[in-house]
């Protein structure tokens, strides 16, 4: 039972990653006849003066170098081989730099910011959502509901703009943009870490605020249904303490669909997080993506998009693999064979 579950999840993971890689390969080729090499040469020509002689030869040479003269199926196989090794070639806009190195520089920023903010939003949101549905919870929580509703409906980055205006522009409590102060050299020291932390608080709060409402609403919905179950009435009849019923009976049972929802929502969450980075000029994947888009850096765009999908597929896989640990029924099956 559990083994077949793992295998099914792994196959699904491979399918998602393969599907994403194929989409990234096919879509640009379907969308237009635009040739990134010609495009790039046009830009170079505009910058360095008009070339007229040897343009065709140059184009042929470049296409041979990037393997674009080969038949499509061979390009596809080469591409799959490269992607498997996380090799996305050279960045077109920042030429000698490799796409892999650029992504590696930006990735830790995104993962830390997005990971910490999302996990905190999920935990606190789920807890407050559960309390909102709990009849014995303090009454003031009910007044929070309209705010939670509003925050969960507004996209992160818009919230980010407002926070930036209130706390960085008018109040100067936090820096206006960037991941660390200009002129500070990135190093492992306490000062640098504190500086990074100060820059991360506002974008973190934006992601957190928008996420917390979503999880609270979701949990509240599940909890209201869960509290009507017979085992709750039974636990009350047994005379168990309120806190024990709340944590061990009510939350424990609705946690499963909540974790499933986390796996499903990750894609939306990271899309929002990317735009938050753009608003704050935070040096993660989102800002890199903006640069890639404005520089028409074909390789960098597909590299970033692929990495984002890979992150989501991996986190979904992790959530899927934790799932049996949370569900006592599956553990029980393993025990009895």
């Amino acid at each position, binding site marked *: 039972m559990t083994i077949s579950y793992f295998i099914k999840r792994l196959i*699904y993971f491979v*399918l*998602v990653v393969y*599907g*994403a890689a194929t*989409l*990234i390969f096919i*879509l*640009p080729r379907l*969308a*237009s006849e*635009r040739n990134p090499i010609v495009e790039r040469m046009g830009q170079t020509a505009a910058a360095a003066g008009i070339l007229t002689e040897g343009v065709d030869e140059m184009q042929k040479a470049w296409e041979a170098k990037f393997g674009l003269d080969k038949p499509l199926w061979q390009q596809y196989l080469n591409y799959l081989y490269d992607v498997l090794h996380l090799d996305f070639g050279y960045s077109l806009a920042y030429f000698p730099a490799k796409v892999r190195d650029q992504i590696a520089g930006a990735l830790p920023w995104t993962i830390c910011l997005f990971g910490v903010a999302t996990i905190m939003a999920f935990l606190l949101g789920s807890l407050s959502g559960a309390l909102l549905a709990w009849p014995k919870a303090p009454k003031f929580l009910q007044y929070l509901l309209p705010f939670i*509703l*509003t925050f*969960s*409906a*507004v*996209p992160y*980055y*818009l919230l980010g*703009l*407002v926070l*930036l*205006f209130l706390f960085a*522009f008018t109040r100067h409590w936090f820096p*206006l943009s960037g991941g660390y102060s200009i002129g500070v050299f990135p190093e492992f020291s306490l000062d640098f870490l504190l500086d990074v932390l100060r820059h991360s608080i506002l974008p973190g709060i934006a992601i957190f605020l928008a996420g917390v409402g979503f999880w609270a*609403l979701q949990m*509240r*919905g*599940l909890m*209201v*249904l869960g509290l009507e179950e017979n085992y709750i009435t039974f636990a009350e009849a047994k005379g168990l303490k309120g806190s024990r019923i709340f944590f061990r009976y009510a939350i424990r049972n609705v946690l499963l669909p909540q974790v499933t929802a986390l796996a*499903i929502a*990750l*894609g*939306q969450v*990271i*899309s*929002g997080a*990317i*735009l938050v980075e*753009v*608003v704050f000029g935070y040096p993660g994947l989102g800002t890199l*993506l*903006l640069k890639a*888009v*404005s520089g*028409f850096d*074909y390789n960098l*765009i*597909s590299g970033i*998009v692929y990495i*984002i*999908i890979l992150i*989501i*597929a991996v986190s*979904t896989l992790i959530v899927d693999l934790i799932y049996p640990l949370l569900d006592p029924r599956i553990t029980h099956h393993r025990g009895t064979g």
Partner: protein
Amino acid sequence: MKPMTNHIFRVASYGRRNPKSVGGLAVILFLVLFWLAGSMLISPSKAEPISGLPDQPPSWKYLLGTDSNGRQLLPVMIVGTGLTLRIGFVAGCIGVCVAIILGFLTGYYRGLLDTLIMGIVDILLTIPPLAVLVVIAAMTVEVISLNSMILIVASLSWMLPTRTIRAQVLSMRESGYVPMAKLSGMNDLEIIVRELMPNLLPYLAAGFVSATASAVLATIGLEALGLGPQSLPTLGMTIYWAISFSALLRGMWWWWLPPVIIIAALFVGLFLLTAGLDEIANPKLRRSI
């Protein structure tokens, strides 16, 4: 006369029981009204660049001020609200139509096609829509037109409605009246149109709103990255221009705050409407939110 008032009374009493969808509808109707009344009172040509002096704060001459390109921002907001509503509405329609076709194909006929389509839907749901949209939008020809923008966002707004419609068709297929209709000699198309569709209406409405909401979310996300119709003053493009001209650092709140407020209102409206329609479609939820 009497049945009419009776009808109105029934709608009103239902509205009292479901304040969320009424509230959501009111917010959206208000935005539509803002767009319609605004386009009647103010000529849309004032939303074009160099229609006013650049970087003017709000005044009697320029009610919401102007941006660095000399667009007057009140007309920009009016035109932009209309454009954004239109993109969302049309993309939502396309999404729901695709979802109806796929939902019936998979839910009613089952089989290999069902496994295949639902597998693709599951995989596409894992991939963040924005990521795929960025690839599509970045590769399209130089200037993105309004229509290609609609097609781009519609291309990924059909998956969730497909799933809900399929689930509903699956359960309805097992209920007594479908075999009954079959026995009485109806063909598949008749069953789908005359027996299943009417029962699906609340789900279709909910699916339409959720497809519209995801289309609007995708539109504004793409536009904020600069991947929108650059020659049109949509709400998302206004935010993109405001960010790239660092309106925030220059204290030009009148540039970025109005689009943020309008977008926030639009999302709250769509969210309330979705929640309200979910309650109609799924009575079990009525007490939950």
